[in-house]
């Protein structure tokens, strides 16, 4: 008691470091990987398998790989058992830009840059006000002007010549951008007390969720033209985009509904007690909280739809994946489909991973007020 009261002891008492082998990297290893004989053996066996598998891949992808061949047989002859990255090198412009006129590939390139810039800027919460609308108008304007052309001396390019990355980006970006408000409206409608609105929204959501995306795309591309008057066609790309919007909208609606249900009833009642009308209650009290709750499933859906855009192959639109498939068709390079697929997987991974990291950041940011 007196010791403590004097206040001198804590200053002189130094805590000794834990024994070696209990802390730091060695300690972590002992605790997690080599806790006992069984653990140790498992670790060694798995590690050996991992190294073996990884080495096989590295050997194929780097050590034995060929970067300079002019054709498939040359690859096989010069670097047997290795990846033929020369194939990707020969085809990367086809993969990224599809059948867009070759001399004008700078247009889809800058369109992609504009879209990326627009998306990255929209990630910044400081822009989440009227500026967001300006950013989207400017970004979309630049990107679509570059893709379509027909003004400022740019030649007009039909959507049937579009391909590769811009197609994937446009389908995913605008598909989700339009689907998001649609989904929110459908979710609110589903919880509406007005029977007509409610049944319309339930019908839409259940109908769309009851069929696969492929059947919607086929419907949009094969059935719809038959119903339209002869000679009157709607652009194939636009039809696919509408199908994606409708499909994603239904899924987003159900996610948002989950968020709406997660908001305690007290919030609604408090808003009512303050005398707020439906619109103000919904947009200032309920939705901000509901959307925050559903960020993880929303991003999950976004990532999923980003990849689902590749289903447009079925109606002959060349998105990133299908432009890659187009490259594989070339018999001069036959037998090297893996290289293209690995390359495409990396491109998709980079974008999907960025999305999931951003969602994590956003969750942290928005939960600042809740965390202690």
């Amino acid at each position, binding site marked *: 008691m007196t010791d403590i009261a004097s206040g001198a002891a804590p200053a002189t008492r130094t805590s000794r470091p834990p024994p070696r082998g209990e802390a730091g990297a060695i300690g972590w290893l002992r605790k997690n990987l080599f806790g006992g004989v069984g653990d140790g053996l498992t670790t060694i066996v798995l590690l050996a398998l991992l190294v073996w598998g990884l080495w096989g891949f590295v050997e194929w992808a780097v050590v034995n790989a060929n970067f300079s061949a002019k054709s498939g047989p040359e690859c096989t002859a010069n670097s047997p058992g290795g990846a033929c990255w020369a194939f990707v090198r020969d085809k990367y412009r086809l993969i990224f830009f599809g059948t867009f006129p070759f001399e004008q590939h700078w247009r889809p390139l800058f369109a992609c840059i504009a879209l990326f810039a627009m998306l990255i800027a929209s990630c910044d919460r400081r822009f989440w006000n009227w500026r967001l609308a300006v950013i989207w108008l400017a970004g979309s304007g630049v990107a679509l002007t570059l893709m379509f052309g027909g003004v400022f001396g740019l030649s007009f390019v039909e959507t*049937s010549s579009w391909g590769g990355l811009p197609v994937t980006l446009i389908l995913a970006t605008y598909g989700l951008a339009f689907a998001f408000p649609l989904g929110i409206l459908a979710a609110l409608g589903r919880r509406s007390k007005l029977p007509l609105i409610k049944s319309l929204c339930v019908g839409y959501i259940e109908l769309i969720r009851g069929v696969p995306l492929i059947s919607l795309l086929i419907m949009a591309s*094969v059935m719809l*033209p038959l119903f339209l008057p002869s000679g009157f066609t709607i652009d*194939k790309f636009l039809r696919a985009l509408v199908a994606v919007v409708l499909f994603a909208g239904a899924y987003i609606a159900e996610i948002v509904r989950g968020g709406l249900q997660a908001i305690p009833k007290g919030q609604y009642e408090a808003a009512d007690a303050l005398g707020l009308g439906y619109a103000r209650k919904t947009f200032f009290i309920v939705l901000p909280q509901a959307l925050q709750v559903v960020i993880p499933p929303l991003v999950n859906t976004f990532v999923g739809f980003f990849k689902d855009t590749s289903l447009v192959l079925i109606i002959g639109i060349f998105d990133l994946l299908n432009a890659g498939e*187009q490259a594989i068709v070339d*018999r001069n390079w036959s037998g090297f489909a893996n290289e293209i697929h690995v390359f495409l997987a990396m491109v998709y991974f980079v974008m999907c991973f960025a999305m999931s990291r951003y969602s994590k950041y956003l969750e942290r940011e928005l939960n600042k007020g809740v965390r202690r």
Partner: protein
Amino acid sequence: MLKNFVAATAAMVAIAGFAGVAHAGKDLDTIKARGSVLCGVSTGLAGFSMADSQGKWTGLDVDVCKAVAAALFGDSGKVKYVPLSAQQRFTALQSGEVDLLSRNTTWTLTRDTSLGLNFTGVVYYDGQGFMVAKKLGVKSARELNGATVCVQPGTTTELNLADYFRANKMTFKPVVIERLEEVEQAFFSGRCDVYTTDASGLAATRATKTSAPDDYLILPEIISKEPLGPAVRHGDDQWADLVRWTLYAMVEAEEYGVTSKNVEEMKSSANPVIKRLLGVTPGMGKMLGVDEDWIVKIVKQVGNYGEAFERNVGKATPLKLERGLNALWTQGGLQYAPPIR
């Protein structure tokens, strides 16, 4: 009820009219006004229609589109390609999304009649065949009783296979694999005795997918007819005529030795057939509604049939296809153009 219907119809008509693309009755007029041919092609089939490394469409089917544009506009570049999947192709043609379907499509009675199409000729005579390893010692498809057969599902190939074996009272074990790459791999790794698909496909597979092409034999029996050709929709015979005679012009040019290299010299030929062909003796172009030197433009920009064949699928290409049935009738094949006179 009736009122609603009338209103809806009026709205539809108004929309169509507003869009300004309603038919004037003739496809050819629409195409001329547009200034380019909308050509439906495959989403990727080596040698027939595929985008090369620069994203430019190449192939035998694509050359048909180019030739038609050369005949009509004098410029083989005035084509807008619309890649179509197998499911979409006929709707796209019926609904006017494309003017011309040149997409390795087999000419059958059903398609020619009930789908409302007109096939305008045969660009490539194909047929289903069998490939086996030589070490099996099989010389004829009739010896294949009890064989395991690699085949892709959902195609006429699968149906023809079953028909053929049933007709010859033989049995077989199908190994059904969806993707081309995988079915080829299964065959060469010995999972099945026989691989069946169109003969052109067999030759291409043998030429490119194995290091020992001599170890494999394509059996002589061709069990189906697959005449692949371009199609247009019903309703504009003049347009159908132009596509039909463009194809014939390419065949006729080959028959009379007119190539992209010598077409200018050939103009001074004394042969009256060549004179008519190249418009030196005028009249042919006028009857089709195109310039008199339409064939000169086709041959100069695209080549004659033989040139297009060799460039896209012939000996010098990875596909290494023989002319076979696609040789001229004078050389034992089926390519025969009615006289251009």
